[in-house]
């Protein structure tokens, strides 16, 4: 159940003086929907490319589905579906022709079932009716769907997706999310690289956060956003909360007070006994955004004068 699907040890990629990826130990297990978060330029794409054998690591080891990469690429990669950065296809050919050529270009896709598989994935991503139109006449969203279809072509055990909802409209995003969840229920492990926190929060069961080439956080989403042991009280009169529960108040603002205590019922009883009006009560949970911001530094796009990035 918890077999490692992606495991890296001390993975480093250096471009000149820049350590784009600086010693990361990924641990993605079978059945995970793994959210790989990081600001632009934090090394996400380089890591994804190393996992797939496109970029060769400076040092460190990668194991993909139990095989060593990039050595076993020919054996492993047919079992992996990938969407890297943006989709790409030959503009003068139809979507169907593109998928057929892609399938014929490598091992692990039987010629006999090719037609059926191509039809099936086009249906899955909602492009079944697109016909012979050349890809250059596709919208960005359609190209994204076609890219996803290419990734699904051989029923992969592992999907590696880099920003799969880029360019899709809200309905499209919703469809892709449903599709991924459906595939996940069917046993596919999903590795989702994204800078969209909301997307990851809705989809993923495990999260890794990359900051300037380092993996600063890797844990179950449920653990990261577990209750903090405090209760958030909504009230029109926060000052009276401080009077009633002196010493337990962690913070106050105009309409809310955060009170130490993991049992909202107990907090409520104490406040009601003191005659404080309470309009809302909730366990305090950190949002993924707060967790990520606490773990990672500023945006990697920022290049400050001194020591702005993890250069050298």
């Amino acid at each position, binding site marked *: 159940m918890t077999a490692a699907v992606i495991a890296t040890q001390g993975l480093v990629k250096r471009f000149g003086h820049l350590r784009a990826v600086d010693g990361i130990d990924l641990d993605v297990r079978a059945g995970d929907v793994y959210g790989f978060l990081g600001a632009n330029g934090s090394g996400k794409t380089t890591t994804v490319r190393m996992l797939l054998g496109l970029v060769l690591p400076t040092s460190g080891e990668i194991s993909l589905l139990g095989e060593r990469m990039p050595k076993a690429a020919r054996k492993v*990669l*047919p079992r992996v579906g990938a969407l890297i950065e943006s989709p*790409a296809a*030959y503009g*003068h050919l139809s979507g169907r022709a593109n998928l057929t050529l*892609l399938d*014929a*270009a*490598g091992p692990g896709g039987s010629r006999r079932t090719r037609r059926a598989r191509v039809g099936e994935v086009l249906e899955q991503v909602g492009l079944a009716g697109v016909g012979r139109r050349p890809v250059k006449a596709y919208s960005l969203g359609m190209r994204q769907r076609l890219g996803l279809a290419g990734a699904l072509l051989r029923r992969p055990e592992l999907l590696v997706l880099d920003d799969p909802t880029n360019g899709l409209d809200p309905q499209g995003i919703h469809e892709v999310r449903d599709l991924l969840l459906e595939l996940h229920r069917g046993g596919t492990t999903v590795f989702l690289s994204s800078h969209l926190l909301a997307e990851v929060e809705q989809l993923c069961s495990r999260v890794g956060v990359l900051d300037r080439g380092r993996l600063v956080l890797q844990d179950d989403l449920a653990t990261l956003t577990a209750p903090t042991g405090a209760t958030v009280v909504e009230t029109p009169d926060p000052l009276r909360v401080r009077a009633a529960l002196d010493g337990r108040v962690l913070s106050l603002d105009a309409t809310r007070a955060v009170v130490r205590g993991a049992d909202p019922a107990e907090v409520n009883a104490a406040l009601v006994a003191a005659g404080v009006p309470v309009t809302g009560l909730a366990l305090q949970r950190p949002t993924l955004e707060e967790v990520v911001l606490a773990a990672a530094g500023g945006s990697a796009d920022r290049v400050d004068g001194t020591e702005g990035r993890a250069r050298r």
Partner: protein
Amino acid sequence: MIAVELAKMFRRPRTWVTIALLNALPVLVAALLALTDLAPRPGEGPPFLSAVLTNGTLYPLAALAIVLPLFLPIAVALIAGDAVAGEAQAGTLRYLLVRPAGRTRLLVAKLISVVAFVLVTVLVVAAVGYLVGQVFFDVQPISGARATGGTALSGTSLTPAQITGRTVLAIGYVTASMLGVAAFALFFSTLTDSPLAAMLGALAVLIASSLLFTLDAASSIAPYLPTRYWLAFVDFFRDPILWRDVVRGLGLQAVYVAVLLGAAWANFTTKDVTS
């Protein structure tokens, strides 16, 4: 994989437009010659052109000689330069490689499709040249088997069978010469993500080579210039065939092709694909 690459190339409209444009110049030249009857004097202008007015069967060779210095290398450099860099620029290279196509396999498939393009292009130029020759010019009657089929450049006569055989040899030789161009362009294509840069790089090499060839000061390196023996296919039409330059030309192209493809392979199989 090879079938995939061939399908990709020959299903692409651009491939056929290139070949069609390549044939435009010999056709235009033939039309002008036929209309004006003003052939260049023997020894001037492209080889064979002076002879075609009297014998249209030589026009395939004249057509090859017309496109050989510039048009044919441009077409070959265009296709070969696009081979890897074009995929990189379009972003399809990364999807091919994670498919996984295998870098060596992909390069070999690209090479074979480029060779196929060179062959098809040279054959089409020769075929169009043949048709044009039949249409625009007098053709020596082939029925008189013992009649002179044509005149060799050295003045003696060749039978039609000899002309046909030697034309085939010449087509083969031109194809081999173009493989050198293809190897340059393919090597540059693995260096850059821009197909334009790869094509221009290969053309720059050829232009430099042609220029140095005309320079007396460069005579010591002249035998090693890639374009040095290109026009040696003319020697197939001397009687007897003058093999010396042809053999040297083939040897030189073989060395260029081997070295450049080795370099292309070494570079491509170890490079980070970041396109």
